[in-house]
C-alpha cells in the first residue's frame, strides 16, 4: 500500500506540490489526472527520488517503508517502478546489459540469486514477444534511436522484467498510436493482481479505456481536489478540468 500524506515539494524554490494526500491499496490501479503544470510529473519524480525535487513536508510510505528517506535504487528494490514520460537514452549501454544489471541488482537487494546470461535471455525473449518487440532491440543502446512508441514499450518491458509492486506510469500514453497503446495497456493489465498496484498519470481519458482504474484522482495546483470511480474520468473528458475545479 502506498500512503502519501500532506506531501509538499518544490523545484528550484518554487512550490509545486501543496499537500498531496493519497492512498493506493495493494492490488488497485489508481489514475491521476490533471491539467498541464498541475504537478503530476513532479509527484512521480518525488516518489522516485529525483535530484532537484525537494520534499518540504509530509510523508510517503510504501508497505510501511519511508521511501522519501532512501536512495532511488533502494526505492526500486523496495518495488517502486517509474515508467518515464521521456525515457532517457544511454548511448553505449546495451539494452540487454542494462536490463540484466538492473534485474540482478534488485534480486541481490532482495537476497535472491542472480540470473545468468542464458536464464536472462530466455526471460527477456519471452517478455519481448508478449510486447511485440523485435529481438534486436536487446542489442541496441538503451533507447538510442528508438521511436517514441519503442521507448514506451521498452519501459513496459523493463516493468515486465523487474516485476515491481508499484508502477507509476507517467504519461505513458503520450505519443502512442492506438496499436502501441493497446500493447502497452495489455502489458500493464497482465501485471494486475493482488500484489501489484499502479498509479497511472495521464492527461486524457483515452488510456483509461484500456487500463480501467479502480479510482480516479484529480490533481490541480499540487493538490488532489477530487477523487472518484472510473466515471470521474469520463466526467472530466466531457466537462474539462475547469468545471471540476470550480465544483471542488
Amino acid at each position: 500500500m502506498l500512503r502519501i500524506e500532506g506531501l509538499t515539494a518544490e523545484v528550484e524554490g518554487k512550490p509545486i506540490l501543496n499537500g498531496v494526500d493519497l492512498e493506493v491499496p495493494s492490488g488497485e490501479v489508481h489514475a491521476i489526472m490533471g491539467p498541464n503544470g498541475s504537478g503530476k510529473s513532479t509527484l512521480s519524480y518525488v516518489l522516485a527520488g529525483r535530484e532537484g525535487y525537494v520534499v518540504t513536508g509530509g510523508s510517503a510510505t510504501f508497505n510501511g517503508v519511508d521511501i522519501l528517506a532512501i536512495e532511488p535504487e533502494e526505492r526500486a528494490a523496495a518495488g517502486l517502478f517509474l515508467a518515464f514520460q521521456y525515457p532517457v537514452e544511454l548511448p553505449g549501454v546495451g539494452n540487454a546489459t542494462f536490463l540484466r544489471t538492473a534485474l540482478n541488482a534488485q534480486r541481490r537487494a532482495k537476497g535472491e540469486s542472480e540470473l545468468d546470461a542464458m536464464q536472462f535471455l530466455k526471460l527477456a525473449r519471452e517478455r519481448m514477444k508478449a510486447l511485440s518487440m523485435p529481438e534486436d532491440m536487446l542489442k541496441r543502446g538503451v533507447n538510442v534511436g528508438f521511436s517514441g512508441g519503442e521507448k514506451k514499450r521498452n519501459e513496459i518491458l523493463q516493468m515486465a522484467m523487474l516485476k515491481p509492486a508499484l508502477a507509476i506510469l507517467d504519461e505513458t500514453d503520450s505519443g502512442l498510436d492506438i496499436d502501441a497503446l493497446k500493447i502497452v495497456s495489455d502489458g500493464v493489465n497482465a501485471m494486475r493482481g493482488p500484489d501489484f498496484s499502479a498509479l497511472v498519470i495521464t492527461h486524457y481519458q483515452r488510456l483509461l479505456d484500456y487500463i480501467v482504474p479502480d479510482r480516479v484522482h484529480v490533481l490541480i495546483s499540487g493538490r488532489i481536489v477530487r477523487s472518484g470511480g472510473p466515471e470521474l474520468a469520463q466526467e472530466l473528458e466531457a466537462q474539462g478540468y475547469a468545471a471540476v475545479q470550480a465544483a471542488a
Partner: protein
Amino acid sequence: MTAPVATGAAGFLARYEGLKDHLPGARKPWLNQLRADAAVHFAARGFPTRRVEQWKYTDLAPVAQASFAEPLTMVEGAIALPVPNAENRAVFVDGRFRPDLSTLDGLAFRVGGLAQGLADAEPWLGALAKPGTEPLAALNTMLFEDGLFLDLPEGVDGGLLELVSIAVDPGRPFAFHPRHLFRLGAGAKLTLIETATGRGHCLHNPVFEIDVAENATLTHGRMLQEEATVFHLSTIYATVAAGGTYDNFTVAAGPRLTRNEIHAALTGPKAACHMNGAQMASDGQHVDTTTALDHAAPDCASRQTYKTVLAGRSRGVFQGKIHVHRVAQRTDGYQMNQALLLSDEAEIDSKPQLEIYADDVKCSHGATVGALDADSLFYLRTRGIPESQAKAMLVEAFLHEAVETVTDDTLRTALTRALDNWWARQEASA
C-alpha cells in the same frame, strides 16, 4: 661511471657527445650524419616549452628538469612478462631487443632488432621522422639504440604479432629512445599489438616510422600501461599509399605523463586512416593525444574517435589537426573527441583543428566535454542499480564506444581488458 650532472636537453646532448662513437651504427657515415643533424636540431630547440603551440597544454618541465642516464647494462635473469596477447612476440627490455625472451620462429617476414639490422635500414630510417620540427624525434634520432624492425614483403599476411616493451627499474632515473621501423609491402597485412609496461623513474621516448604500401593494411593497437612514475612520450610517423590502411588504437592509462603523438599522411588515392583511442588519468597524471592527419591525395577517408576520462587532480589534452591539401578532392574526414570529467579538480583542454584547401570535401569534427549525465544516472538508479555501479556502467559505455571501432577480436579483447583494468584500479583506490 659518474652520475650525470647536466639536466634536460643539455644532459642529453652531453651524453650524445660522450656516446656517439659507441652507439649502434657508429661506423656508418649516413647514420652518424643523421644523428649529428638531429643533435643540431635538438641543441637549437631543446625540450619544447608551453610557448610552442603544439605543447601549449603539456608541460615537459618535469622531463626537462630531470637528469636521465642510459640503461647501461643488459638486465639479465628473470623478467616478468605480461600475459601474452599473441603467439608471436618481440620483447624489448629497456628499449633493447631480447631474442631470448621473444618468440618469432618461422615467420615469413623480417622481424627483429633494429640494431642488428641497420645495414638494411638506410633507405627507411629517418625517411618519415621530422627531427627538424619535433624535438622529441630529434632526441630519439640522436640517441636511439634499438627498436623493432619489421619488413613485410608484398602480399604477405603477417597475422598477429605482439610488441612488448618493458622498463625495469634500476633504482636511478634512466631514459631510452627506441626507434621502430615498420614496412608493409603492397597488399601485405599485419595486426600488431603493442604493450608498454614498466616501472621506475624513466623516460620512454619511442619513435615509429611506418610505411604502408599500396593496398597494405596495418592494424596497430597500443596499450601504454607503465606505472605512474614513467614519462611516456611517443611519436608515430605513418605514411599510407594508395588503397592502403593504417589503423591505430591507443589506450593510455598508467604513466605519470603520456604524450601520444601521431602524424599520418595519406599519399595515394583511396588510402585510409583510422585513429582511435581512450586515455585515462587520475591523481597527478597527465594524458595528451595529439594527432596530425595529412590528406595529400584524393578520395581518402579518415576517422578519429578519442575518449578522455579524468579522475582526481589530473589533466587531459586532445589536439587533432586534419590538413586537406588542394589535390585531396573528395576527402572524407571525421574526428570526434569527447571528455568525461569525474572530478572537480580535473582539467581538459581540447583543440580540434581543420585546415582545408580543397573544396569538394566532407570534413567535420566535434568535441564534447562534460560530467556523467545526471538524467542517465537517475534512470539507472530508478531501475535499482546502485550509484557506484551505475557510474561504472556509464563510464564503461563511454569508453567502449571508442573500442567498438576495432574489428580484430583479439585486439578488441585486449583493449577492453586494458580499459576495465583502469576502471577497476580507480574503483579500488576510491
